[in-house]
């Protein structure tokens, strides 16, 4: 399949090549047929070699002159045919070639071949990213920064061109293709054993659904994480085993409800699911008083459902209440003008949420509301990342950035599959426990959003533990989380959030807990701590030093010498 372009080339060049062969053959016959004369009157004719030589330098219009002897007029007249025929054939061949390289079908075939080759050359596990909009580009950047590779398909050629000009850490092959087609996914490396999974983040729910079902049918073991903005699509996706469905509006609404009901838990949630290495921030607590919801679309509905659950009163402002099925008491209007906002009772409200699908409207709502009542809690939905600077300038208490929300959620699912489990367990605890976790995260992360990763205690991924276990030495969580460069058993700036064993799931495990084979640990901390931990788990002498305080000589020779000495 890879050299399809080559076959097209051969087939298109068939007639020009035939023309060339024919013209050369006819010319050679003409050249050899017409006799010439030496000055002394003796007759001569060209032989095959003369004819081939003459035509070879005449056809591409090089022209060395009359070889091997000067021609007479009969020859010159006859040879005109032999000169023009191949020249025309050459032109024909060139024109065909040029036309071929400008042919969009041929170009696409060439690009497809190049994309396939580039994907095949990927040497590390990679994710297929379908859709390179705001979410896709955030995901690709973050994936490459975490050492994953990626291949990208998008229907928009301009976005692919943008991908090629971006300054990423790794080369990411991209192709303008429709993710709905199985062939496109195959080209992006679906059948490649290094493929870790597929991220379907196109703006179209139906395409995402198609991608999910294609992958689950062809390769059920591959992980599929999709974006879905409609509830029915999300349910549909989950029904056939899509690993994770991320709904940006529902997840924002969840967070909002969490922030109102359990602010400490919300803080942990925000910190653990943010983009690593951005500053940790203290989200202001949203008020539990009356909310004004502008826009009752998918987003507005999702928020209202959650607000109902935490018993927060709200008033809806909607331009077309009949079409969207807004409940009784909905104010008719856009909410961009003071009259509508006053009608909705902004004087008694504590918060305004601008949730229309138009960024200009949302900004206008927020600014008008602030004018009327400066102390309002404001949030607005940001539809396009291009407008991020404007939303920043508007200084909202809780911005809604769907593409950012989706990207961070997906990234966490990729790098820390245990995180949702931890957050689910953590919700069950009380405020003081949440505060303790938050304190711990702040301690280890140094004021920035921590990295989150999973540690596997098994032979392949932490050989040092396995070796010490085979010598009968017990290794505890505290041992591996110690910094070997510090003398006094100083801890790494990392902490274990969750310990998962077949028989138990322990949130915030104690440092004295001995590790067992098959354990999985959810850790968070700084990236330096992460790389130090990876080193410790891979080098038995480092780990032995941490456990026993003993420094063993390393290297084959030193080990042999040490064995002889004892």
């Amino acid at each position, binding site marked *: 399949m890879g050299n399809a372009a080559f*076959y097209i080339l*051969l*087939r*298109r060049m*068939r007639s020009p*090549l035939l023309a060339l*062969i*024919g013209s050369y053959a006819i010319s050679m016959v003409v050249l050899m047929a017409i006799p010439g004369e030496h000055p002394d009157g003796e007759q001569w004719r060209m032989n*095959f070699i003369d004819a081939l030589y003459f035509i070879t330098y005449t056809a591409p219009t090089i022209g060395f002159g009359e070889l091997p002897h000067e021609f007479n007029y009969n020859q010159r007249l006859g040879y005109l045919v032999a000169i023009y025929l191949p020249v025309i054939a050459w032109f024909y061949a060139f024109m065909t070639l040029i036309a071929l390289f400008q042919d969009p079908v041929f170009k696409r075939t060439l690009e497809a071949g190049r994309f396939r080759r580039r994907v095949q050359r990927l040497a590390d596990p990679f994710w297929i990213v379908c859709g390179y909009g705001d979410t896709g580009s955030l995901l690709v950047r973050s994936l490459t920064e975490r050492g994953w590779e990626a291949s990208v398909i998008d229907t928009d050629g301009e976005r692919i061109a943008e991908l090629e000009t971006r300054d990423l850490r790794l080369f990411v092959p991209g192709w303008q293709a429709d993710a709905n087609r199985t062939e496109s996914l195959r080209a992006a490396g679906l059948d490649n054993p290094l493929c870790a999974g597929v991220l379907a983040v196109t703006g179209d729910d139906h395409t995402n659904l198609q991608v999910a079902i294609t992958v689950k049918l062809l390769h059920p073991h591959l992980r599929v994480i999709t974006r879905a903005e409609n509830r029915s699509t999300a349910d549909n996706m989950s029904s056939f085993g899509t690993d994770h469905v991320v709904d940006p509006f529902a997840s924002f609404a969840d967070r909002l409800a969490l922030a109102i009901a359990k602010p400490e838990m919300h803080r942990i949630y925000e910190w653990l699911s943010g983009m690593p290495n951005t500053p940790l921030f203290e989200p202001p607590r949203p008020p539990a008083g009356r909310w004004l919801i502008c826009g009752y679309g998918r987003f507005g509905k999702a928020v209202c459902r959650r607000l109902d659950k935490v018993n927060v009163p709200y008033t809806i402002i909607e331009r077309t209440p009949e079409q969207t099925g807004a409940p009784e008491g909905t104010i008719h209007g856009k909410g961009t003008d003071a009259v509508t906002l006053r009608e909705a009772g902004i004087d008694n409200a504590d918060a305004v949420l601008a949730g229309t699908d138009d960024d200009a409207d949302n900004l206008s709502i927020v600014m008008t509301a602030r004018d009327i009542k400066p102390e309002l809690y404001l949030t607005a939905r940001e539809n396009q990342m291009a407008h991020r600077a404007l939303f920043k300038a508007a200084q909202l208490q809780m911005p809604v950035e769907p593409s950012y929300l989706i990207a961070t959620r997906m990234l966490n699912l990729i790098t820390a599959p245990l995180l949702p489990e931890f957050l689910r367990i953590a919700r069950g605890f009380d405020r003081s426990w949440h505060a303790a976790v938050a304190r711990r995260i702040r301690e280890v992360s140094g004021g920035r959003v921590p990295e989150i990763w999973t540690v596997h205690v098994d032979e392949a991924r932490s050989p040092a533990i396995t070796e010490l276990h085979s010598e009968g030495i017990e290794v505890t969580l505290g041992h591996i989380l110690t910094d070997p460069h510090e003398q006094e058993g100083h801890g790494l700036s990392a902490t274990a959030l969750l310990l998962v064993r077949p028989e138990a799931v322990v949130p915030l495990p104690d440092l004295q807990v001995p590790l067992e084979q098959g354990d999985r640990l959810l850790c968070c901390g700084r990236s330096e701590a992460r790389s130090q931990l990876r080193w410790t788990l891979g080098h038995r002498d480092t780990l032995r030093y941490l456990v026993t305080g003993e420094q063993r000589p390393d290297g084959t020779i030193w080990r042999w010498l040490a064995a002889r000495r004892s």
Partner: protein
Amino acid sequence: MNLEKVVFGFFILLALTLNFGFVYGELANPAHHDAWELFVTIVVNLIATVLKFGERTQIGAILLASSLVADLQLAAAAILWGVAVYGTGVGLTEMTMASVISLASGALVANVVSVTLLIIETVRIHR
């Protein structure tokens, strides 16, 4: 009936018959082998090769390969002939004639393979 198929079969068969005509005769006797016949054989063989371009089937690939082999053998024969007569001045001795015909016979075998494959493919389509 498909004109393209007629042309295709015509050239492949013609390549075989011309090749046979050139080789036919006493092996080392220059009087039995004509230079023009070799020339036409080469031209027809090249045309047959180009006609086989771009076929993506398995049988198409073998057809093209056998044609390329024939081209190579015939080109070697022609070069040998040219060098012997005009290049080194040895002339058409029994030795050179025998070598030229041996090379051309090799091409003949390749052409036989081509025609056989063509017949096989045709029979398969009819079934």
